[in-house]
């Protein structure tokens, strides 16, 4: 038995080596760095330096607030939208279904950098098509990039555009796995279509919805590209700075690795906490 284990470990050795060098070590190392004052060379051990700053740092709470704001507003709106799209896609009246499915899914295939550049152009103050449209229906132009609220709205619009279709396709797959005879029985009992949706589709789709929520929440916690590229590194003045951007800025622009590590550990703790809450809320009732 022992011999067999040894053989197994010998086969695993290359992987374990890489795993410990590129995963385990950085995790330990960044934990230790988070207790060091890294503003000046040489670094010195000072536990309160980064963690003390974190507790009272407005920039950290600003990034946390922005991340949670996107979590609370953008994710539910997007899932609801995805649900509507999925229902429409599922309708037997729909022609050219394949084309629509492709169209809804296409944004995910587009490169992030390319779509960010296009969004910047579309929402440009003087030359963007969005402001031209607003003007043509008598609304004033919006300075999307220089005010906090529109900038945040812009990030949410962009992320929703990119991921709503993706979620719709997942939800659609879930809907199609619900047996047809359940609906048939309901129709015979003269249950309206709307009631069928709320009392049959939604409850049976719950695991799929939870799956979509988990994916979206993880995605939001890691949100980086859109505020980096579309609103120019979390601008205006940190108005769209997410935790990921704060970490990047502290680590690689201000070269404050200690503080960046502390932020990283806080993000990880937060992700674990949110996941636990989610698991608890969606647990199967016995």
């Amino acid at each position, binding site marked *: 038995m022992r011999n067999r284990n040894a053989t197994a470990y010998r086969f695993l050795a290359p992987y374990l080596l890489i795993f410990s060098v590129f995963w385990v070590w950085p995790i330990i190392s960044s934990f230790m760095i988070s207790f060091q004052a890294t503003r*000046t060379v040489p670094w010195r051990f000072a536990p309160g330096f980064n963690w003390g*700053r974190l507790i*009272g740092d407005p920039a950290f709470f600003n990034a946390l607030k922005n991340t949670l704001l996107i979590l609370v507003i953008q994710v539910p709106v997007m899932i609801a939208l995805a649900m509507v799209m999925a229902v429409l896609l599922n309708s037997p009246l729909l022609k050219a279904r394949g084309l629509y499915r492709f169209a809804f899914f296409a944004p995910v295939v587009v490169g992030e950098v390319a779509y960010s550049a296009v969004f910047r152009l579309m929402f440009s103050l003087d030359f963007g098509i969005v402001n031209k449209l607003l003007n043509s229906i008598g609304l004033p132009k919006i300075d999307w990039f220089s005010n*906090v609220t529109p900038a945040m709205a812009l990030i949410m619009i962009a992320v929703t555009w990119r991921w709503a279709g993706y979620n719709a396709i997942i939800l659609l797959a879930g809907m199609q796995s619900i047996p047809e005879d359940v609906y048939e029985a309901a129709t015979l009992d003269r249950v309206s279509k709307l009631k069928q949706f709320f009392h049959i589709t939604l409850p049976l789709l719950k695991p799929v919805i939870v799956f979509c929520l988990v994916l979206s929440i993880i995605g939001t916690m890691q949100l980086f590209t859109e505020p980096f590229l579309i609103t120019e*590194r979390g601008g205006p003045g*940190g108005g769209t700075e997410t935790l990921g951007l704060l970490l990047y800025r502290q680590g690689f*622009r*201000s070269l404050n690795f200690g503080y960046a590590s502390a932020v990283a550990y806080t993000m990880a703790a937060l992700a674990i906490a949110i996941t636990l809450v989610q698991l608890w809320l969606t647990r199967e009732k016995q």
Partner: protein
Amino acid sequence: MRITLSCAALALVLGSAPAFAQSGEITIWSWNVAASSLKATVAGFNKLHPDIKVTVQDLGNQPTYDKSIAGCAAGGVGLPDIVTIENGEAENYWSQFPDCFVDLHTLGYTAEDQKKFPDFKRTELEVGDKAYAMPWDSGPVAAFYRRDFYEKAGVDPASIKTWDDFIAAGKKIQAANPGVSMTNADFNGDTEFFRMISNEQGCAYFAEDGQSITVSEPKCVDALTKVKEMKDAGIVSSADWGTKITNNTAGTVATQVYGGWYEGTIRTESAGENGKWGVYLMPSLTSDGPRAANLGGSSLAITSASKNKEAAYEYLKYTLGTNEGQITMLKEFGLVPSLVSALNDPYVSQGLPYWGGQAVWKDILGTLPKVVPSRGTQFQSDAEIIVRAVQTKYLAGGYPDAKAALDDAAKQIAAATGLPVKS
């Protein structure tokens, strides 16, 4: 120590070798017109050193910093031979990565060579007895304006002495030229107006010795107050670097206030507007103000990872250390030499056709002696991001006044850097 000695020995050996023996390839990272101007000097350089192949890569301003810092953090992996470093951010490199760049003294940069550049350009580049970079250009601030828009509104640029004059003129110009904004500011990702006006008033984020925070001093408060007055008066529309250029070309902006290096950007990017642009001195807060400030300006440093340090140094010596190199960059792309002797070149006092015959460099460079140094310190990028956030909040009405805004900024910078606020 052994490394320093061997470097010095190497320098001695190479110093005695004839210069034409240099050969090899060097790569430089830079951005926008700065990159273009480096390319412009290659031809002249190759006349002296035909065997050195120079490649200039235009990465863009922020990516150059990001990639260079990442390269230094990785012990020099992937770095080119020469990196462009903005003076304001320079100390961040030396303080965190003292071994990432070569001390130019080991390549033959002498005290006499150093004296050819003004002190205010060198403070950030030299630490102790080491010189990490050679000064390149500076950014004396000027107002670049569209003659036709001003004339149509009957505004004489010579009458604009204060920012209040500027606001009044802006209202007239916008009324006479529908669809045109008086000026542009990057309210999304910069604080250029606040920094220019503060510097003109002699106020900076940090004290000159870099040991305390001065961003909440009265002169800075006045500067930020004026920025909000300008925005509230409706004469500033927001535009980032690229949109400013689009506006220049599309004729939707009447004035751009920027460092002298913007001359080349307007002239080359908006070549079709030949003869329509002019220059006047930046306004001040008071009618007897200095009307001189500096914004930006860079230097070139040689990486320790470079395999061709001597060739790279030859390039620096030619491009930054000779009038020929510096004036080529001024002529082609408007980069203001910090090499003092280059300022006496006849080109500087010439009228330039693009600017309607105006001798713009005489006007812009005339302000240089009045420029107050503004030290970036190694905490510049931290402070900048905080001031940016505070400016955004203040402009949106989030503080009762500019004093409260900058007190908050000073408090946050103190928390981020550990430096005291000067009281």
